[in-house]
């Protein structure tokens, strides 16, 4: 799998059933290219989850972010660099 110019999004979402479905459903429905997902509850606040997305959508990135922000269970969406991201720390698990 070649990832040309992936963007990394760091989401804060409500931690309850169905959230991952809503995010992944949005990406499927709008044919956004999702290269990676990692999600776990936030360590110090179990009501929230942190979701890391690796997306390959240079041209539609702003549109993708706006659509993601519209999801009711999504509290915030930030762009993040590879450095310091969950994907950088876990690259060895995906060889």
């Amino acid at each position, binding site marked *: 799998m070649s990832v040309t110019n992936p963007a990394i999004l760091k989401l804060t979402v409500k931690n309850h059933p169905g959230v991952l479905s*809503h995010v992944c459903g949005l990406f499927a429905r709008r044919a956004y290219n999702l290269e990676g997902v990692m999600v776990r509850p936030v360590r110090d606040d179990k009501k929230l989850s942190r979701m890391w997305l690796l997306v390959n959508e240079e041209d539609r990135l702003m549109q993708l972010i706006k*659509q993601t922000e519209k999801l009711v269970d999504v509290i915030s969406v930030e762009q993040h660099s590879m450095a310091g991201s969950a994907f950088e720390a876990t690259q060895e698990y995906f060889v």
Partner: protein
Amino acid sequence: MTELATRPKHSTAAQSQHGHAHEQTQSEVHGDPKTTAETRELSGAQLLIELLERQGITCIAGVPGGANLPMYDALSGSDIKHVLARHEQGAGFIAQGMARVTGKAQVCFASSGPGATNLITAVADAHLDSIPLIAITGQVPQAMIGTDAFQEIDTFGLMLPITKHNYLVRSAEELLEVIPAAFELALSGRPGPVSIDIPKDVQNEKIELGSMPAPGARLPDPVVTEHEVDDMLSRITAAKQPVLMIGGGIVYADATELLRYFAEQMDVPAVQTFMGLGVLPSDHPLSLGMLGMHGAPFTNLVLEECDLLVGLGVRFDDRATGKVAAFCPNAEFIHVDIDNSEIGKVLQPVQSIVADVGNVLEIANRRLQPQSNEQWQQRVAQLKSDHPLQLDGSDEIFRPYGAIAAVAELVDSSANITTDVGQHQMWVAQAYPFERPRQWISSGGLGTMGFGLPAAIGMALAAPNQKTICFSGDGSLMMNIQEFATAAEHNLDLKVIILNNNHLGLVRQQQTLFYNKNLSAVKFEQRTDFPAAAIAMGMAGIDLSECENPREALKQALNEPGPCLINIPIAETEMVFPMVAPGGANKDMIVSETPEAAT
């Protein structure tokens, strides 16, 4: 299989008791629950109904079945009127009809499995047209979820991509949060549907209840600054050939009067989207009618020349823009919409305001300097007279425009109009003299054949003192024809006018124009006797072609209160012109069947 697990054809308790509960007190309504000073015991289903009552819901369309029996048991004691649809899709569109004509959120009920899947088309339709619809479905008990239980289906997963948000409720207590939140979501920002799936054990769960939550309502709109509005005004003033593009957002924001004042003071002509029809009366001097695939030639030609297009409550749908790269080739765009994700989705505006369009217009109207665009208006008038909309046969009752004109002449502007989907829909959109918002409701985004009849029932239920007219076609009407019985049951003043060419007319038209006249699967070999079908289900029905004086018969049928089907045969060779080929540029309008006549 037990009796309870199947979907009965007729509801029992739910159906017979509505309308007799008006004098009942709260405690009687809920079957004398154990009450104390602070708390009382309610089932999840009773709580649901009470929460819906507190939301102001007075009418619910639905179909009962195994997994929503507790809801119907609770509903039978409520003031809420229930309309028993003959198919869940009908229930969904009845609720939509009520929502579209009132602007309020409305509710439909269905059971699990096939009940839920049947509802899906109506929910998806509400999603694309931004309709506040609350779809509440029963689900198998939580312990059985995931076991492929009888009538179990992943309603949550199915509703997910076609709603603003959706819920699977996991306890009766959660209803206290979910129901108000669902209404808040459906009504806030850009409206839309919300689906709530409630397992049967949650409906049956007893909880001790203290206070009730406040009903969910529309949240405050985003703040607009005067600076943003001034910027928009100065761009419009600076433009030499500006045009407004007005859409459903104006209708939903109740901003029609504000828009009319704004357009008049700024002296800017306006094209209307399919969803925005009625915002400007069709005979208003600034109205350029509907743009896009079936817009008048002058409408699309004005857009070719405009240098600034101001989109107000629109989403630049492909049926409106045609090929986007060729849309308004000389124009810059301003985009005002309440949905931030619409900004930049289709085209890049030079200025955008994410706001309720009514708030923007209210500020604009306070701050604008009245102006006139004399030269541009002269050019627009020239284009209008050189390239008018041709309404061939508008004085012949057995031709499309003639039938529509005959109806429009016989009813006043208080009549509410709906359509199904196809040629008849476009003829009505082009030619009916709409005068006010919410006079016209039609399935725009999803283009659902079968929308018209149940939506008309919803309209007639919500606006019983106004006549409801549903224009339909023989293809569309067949897709929810079972709701004739529902219309008859409630004796609604509803007229279904069928422009009957015994074909899937718009498909036939496309095959004729774009597939070398290779007519494939568009003719109904078995002709349906629609008046007989209407009569069989308790409505009146006439065929104008069998009447000695068709105009007089039409007048009588329209004026006689009650539901009536009026069959008007037309030729299958009739077409909707102009037409822009799907994917084509709006300037390339086909205006007749002979290719060389294309402009």
